[in-house]
């Protein structure tokens, strides 16, 4: 696990807390609304502080090393308005999503089986733990050597990198499942399929969502590496192009656009998904004091 992964995961958490807060805002009494506003203010303040530090540093370094925030954001606007942003970002996102899909298809059943069957747990634990410690960079190299410079290597590298993490999360989630509900479903003779779909999976949703949040951070790191190595489009490729002409401004601008896209995914898509699948849970106690 690298620092970048942790930071992205942390961003994921704070973003989801924020979106929960926004969702509940209109149900609160005035005092709580002030609390909520203060919380949002602090989060915005944190981002502004980062930009301020960046700007202060840029006063002391040449723009080739630390470009001014204003110039970088102008470059972001330029990238977005010239049109290749959407196709590049689209390619990268597609690779992330396909890789993600592959990982989910393998990890969800595997994690559930490991959580329920002792023998399978013992058998699959070593490869899963080994897989978790393997750096994404090495997976990227291995996949490129195996599949060549193709889309397939990007899909495979993303999939295989996040698979162990997803599996562990679902495996541990399965172990923490409410045994009493399993007994209940046995008392009413629920079929194995019904046990999985009606009793087990709903209890895993929050684990799966957490895994998706963290997995997205990992997936983006790996896909960028694959694109840097040899694909001819995507955000990683653009970053490498910026690097080749030593344009700090371009590298930063592409990184920022990606962060913005990630935040939109986190807030918009995953946040909505979470609200949709946790509708049954009263939201009052979700707000932290």
């Amino acid at each position, binding site marked *: 696990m690298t620092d970048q992964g942790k930071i992205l995961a942390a961003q994921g958490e704070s973003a989801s807390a924020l979106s929960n807060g926004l969702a509940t805002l209109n149900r609160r009494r005035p005092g709580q609304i002030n609390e909520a506003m203060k919380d949002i203010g602090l989060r915005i303040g944190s981002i502004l502080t980062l930009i301020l530090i960046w700007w202060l540093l840029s006063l002391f370094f040449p723009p080739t090393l630390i470009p001014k925030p204003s110039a970088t954001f102008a470059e972001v606007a330029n990238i977005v308005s010239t049109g290749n942003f959407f196709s590049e970002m689209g390619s990268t996102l597609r690779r992330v999503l396909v890789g993600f899909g592959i990982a989910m298809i393998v990890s969800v059943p595997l994690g559930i089986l490991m959580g329920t069957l002792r023998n399978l747990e013992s058998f699959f634990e070593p490869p899963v733990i080994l897989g978790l410690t393997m750096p994404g960079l090495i997976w990227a190299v291995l996949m490129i050597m195996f599949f060549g410079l193709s889309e397939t290597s990007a899909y495979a590298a993303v999939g295989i990198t996040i698979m162990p993490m997803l599996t562990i999360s679902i495996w541990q989630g399965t172990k923490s499942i409410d045994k*009493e*509900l399993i*007994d*209940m*479903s*046995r*008392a*009413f*003779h*629920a*079929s194995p399929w*019904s046990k999985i779909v*009606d*009793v087990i999976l*709903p209890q895993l949703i929050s684990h799966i969502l957490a895994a998706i949040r963290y997995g997205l951070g990992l997936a983006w790191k790996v896909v960028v590496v694959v694109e840097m190595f040899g694909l001819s489009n995507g955000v990683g490729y653009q970053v490498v192009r910026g690097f080749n002409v030593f344009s700090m401004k371009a590298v930063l601008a592409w990184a920022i656009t990606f962060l913005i896209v990630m935040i939109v995914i986190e807030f918009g898509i995953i946040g909505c998904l979470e609200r949709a699948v946790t*509708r*049954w*849970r*009263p939201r009052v106690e979700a707000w932290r004091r």
Partner: protein
Amino acid sequence: MAYVRVQGAVKFFPREDGSEMLVLDRVSFETKEHGITCLLGPSGCGKSTLLNVVVGLERLDQGNVEVLSNHRRSARELPQLGYVFQDPRLLNWKRVENNLTFALKGMGVPRTEWEERIQKYLGLAGLREFRKQFPLYLSGGMRQRVGLARALAIEPEVLLMDEPYSKLDQLTARKLREDTLAICARLQQTALLVTHDVEEAAYMGDRIVILSARPAHVVETSDNPFAPPERDLDDPTFIQFKKKVLKTVLSLVEEEV
């Protein structure tokens, strides 16, 4: 048209250190047909284990449990038992009505009957207008009612209840006892209720089976001299009966001390 017969039930539980602890010591009793049989005993005496054995969640080490029924079953067909748990054990992510269909689906009730059953049993449990709610938006008593409706909806041969009122406040529990008694009387439901509450046993039970502290054996089996409508918690003769049961149970506890 069904009743439960338990004969010479023996059950050991493994201890932490590997030795075995006797939980049920040759327990025998029969439930009363079309009535509520109460298993009354001190906490931790193995009453719930007995229910789990009846429903098939646990196995006996010796003895046997039969669910006798007019309806002839093939050897592989399981008896239809409706279980009401101490905690409601609902699927909180499913609406009230879907908690019922979960059980109906499991017990193999044809889909065409579901709607009728949902309406009937949610109605009986006083939950008609809550069928589209999610359980966590209901009070504890309401959730327990959902658990009751779910168990009744499968139209069980025997209704099994494991201290279903012990986690409710006194007033809610009292109301729910009254309602359960009325529903069971109306449905002519054979039921087995586990409790450690003497008043509850005297009020609910048509037959009261008093169990000793662990290892549990049957101390006394008696039929309630009061028919359900005559059980008035404030009536002196009923209080007299309650005291008699309490005395038996207290003597067991004193032996322990």
